[in-house]
């Protein structure tokens, strides 16, 4: 019997209905189907309110879909307990948030090493890995600074380093360039693309900046919670 080839990430019939009030129903996502292979560099774009953040949160197990399933590397994430999801996020998924979301009490280096330490890696390994990733992202000289001592672009690079350093299977970045000027935005995406190429990590990010979208190798477009286009280069 030949093993069934499964795609790396399967998004199956995902719908999300927000219900802020009893009366109101907001369909944020409507029957999304998407498969992503290992090593892809995908952008999710679409106008504001189209459901990009919601989709990324559901893929990463931060939010639950109303319907549908997420299968990551053959493992069904939907329906897992929060404890298990936390473990999967720690070991297999890296997050980059629009608002950087670095831990304010930790230095850049400690932020980058936090997840690796949770994974139980030795101090030396954490050190070596954080330095290596920081060098690729051009922030090696900033490692001992606290987040509030860094600019937005620098913080976002630290956030990318934090997401990538623990060698996750998948990195999810929600509008990582939204708070950056266009030059730093392009630079950040270039760095992420380099990491994607050199480390083979699958990266999915969202954006509505055409310059940034153009850098991705695959572009998925959402509109009103529906998947409208999916173009591969």
């Amino acid at each position, binding site marked *: 019997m030949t093993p069934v080839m499964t795609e790396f990430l399967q998004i199956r019939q995902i719908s999300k209905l927000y219900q802020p009030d009893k009366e109101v129903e907001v369909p944020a996502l409507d029957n999304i189907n998407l498969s992503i292979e290992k090593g892809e560099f995908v952008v999710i774009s679409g106008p504001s309110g189209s459901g990009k953040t919601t989709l990324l*949160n559901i893929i990463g197990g931060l939010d639950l879909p109303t319907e549908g399933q997420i299968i990551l590397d053959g493992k069904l994430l939907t329906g897992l307990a929060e404890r298990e999801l936390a473990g999967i996020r720690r070991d297999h998924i890296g997050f980059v948030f629009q608002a950087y979301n670095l831990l304010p009490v930790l230095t850049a280096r400690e932020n980058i090493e936090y*997840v690796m330490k949770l994974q139980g890696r030795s101090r030396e390994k954490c050190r070596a890995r954080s330095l290596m990733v920081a060098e690729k992202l051009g922030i090696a000289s900033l490692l001992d600074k606290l987040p509030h001592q860094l600019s937005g672009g620098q913080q976002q690079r630290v956030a990318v380093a934090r997401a990538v350093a623990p060698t996750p299977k998948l990195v999810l970045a929600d509008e990582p360039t939204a708070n950056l000027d266009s030059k730093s935005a392009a630079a950040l995406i270039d760095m992420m693309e380099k990491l994607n190429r050199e480390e083979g990590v699958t990266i999915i990010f969202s954006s509505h900046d055409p310059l940034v979208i153009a850098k991705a190798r695959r572009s998925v477009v959402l509109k009103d919670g529906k998947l409208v286009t999916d173009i591969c280069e």
Partner: protein
Amino acid sequence: MLFQFALRNVLAHGKRSVVTILLGTISTALLVFSSAWMDGSHQQMIKNAVEIYPGYIQITGAEFRQSPSFEHLLFDVDKIQAEVIDIAGVALFTPRFEAFVLFSVGDKTVGGMLTGINPEKERRVSRLCAALKDGEYLENNDNNQLYIGNELARRLQVKVGDELVFIGTGADYSFAADRLIVKGIFQTGLFEFDAGSAFLAKSYFDRIMASKNLATHGIVLPENLNRSAQLAGVIGRRIGPKYQVADWQQTMAGLVKSMQLDSCFGYITLAIIFIVIFFVVMIYTLLAVFARLKEIGIMRAIGTTPRQVFAILLWESSILGFISVWVGGLIGAAFAWYFCIHPLVFSGMEEQFKQYGLAASAIPSAFEPLTIGRDMAVMFLLLLLSTLYPIIKVNRYQPIEALHHV
């Protein structure tokens, strides 16, 4: 790693940490000192009450305490004395003979207790001599010279040098009466005692009461006051079942009980204070933890499990609690120690104190490391418990909700 992170958080949130530590420190110091003070004043009251007259250890005939009649006397005081004095830990033995008599002056007659004592030894086992108010204390070879309580003297309207008569029954049931001269007047502050007691030197008393070598009870002064109970046991086994040996906790059972009751009320008051502290700490922690909800959301989003978040926050509370308890404990202990060595003197309040049976106006606090340790442990648990609810509450949040919290 979790501990290190907790430590970082404690250090980074300096202001909050300081406030929490301050709260904990003050509460601990308060608890340690107030229980030391409570114990100290109770010990002092008991010490006063015991030392004024009853003594630390009493020896009586086996049934004397149930039926205090002349049939159950100590019949061979010299022999008992020789035996008791030999026991290690006994500093002194002195016999007393108490007899109910009528005192009368002119047309006034008052009932009371006339007791034959050994004045010299009595100086060491009771505070009769120190309670002298007027005239002079007794001496061993005094004759019909009387040392009388000030209330009794007032009722009989006698002063030092005045004469009065007593009528009573001798140890051999013979009729006994004599003419006595007031040598000194005392005031212990125990009203009942001052209103019903008078003393004669036992050598003279024995002659008129036919009580030579007899006593209603004997008092033993232990070398170590804290070991009265053990010593009483040793003496009891040595002198045999013909006698009963009771330490102050038995002879003063009522007082001991009332002190325990008082402690109990004291602890209830403290408990109420601590419930307040508990909620203050809890609410403060709740605010502090919710101010960090976003941070906790980030931790959760990047893979910290709820259990690890719980552990980190609990470590933080433990670090803060640990510091509070030690700093507060040391401050409280320092105060307890200081006031143990330099008892608080309520000057000018001697008179009021005497009415409560306190012959002294200085109250030391107790200094007992074990009690202090207990208080510190209780406080530590209380501080941890008070942060438990906020920690659990904050941990209930889904990471995404926590992240969006501002």
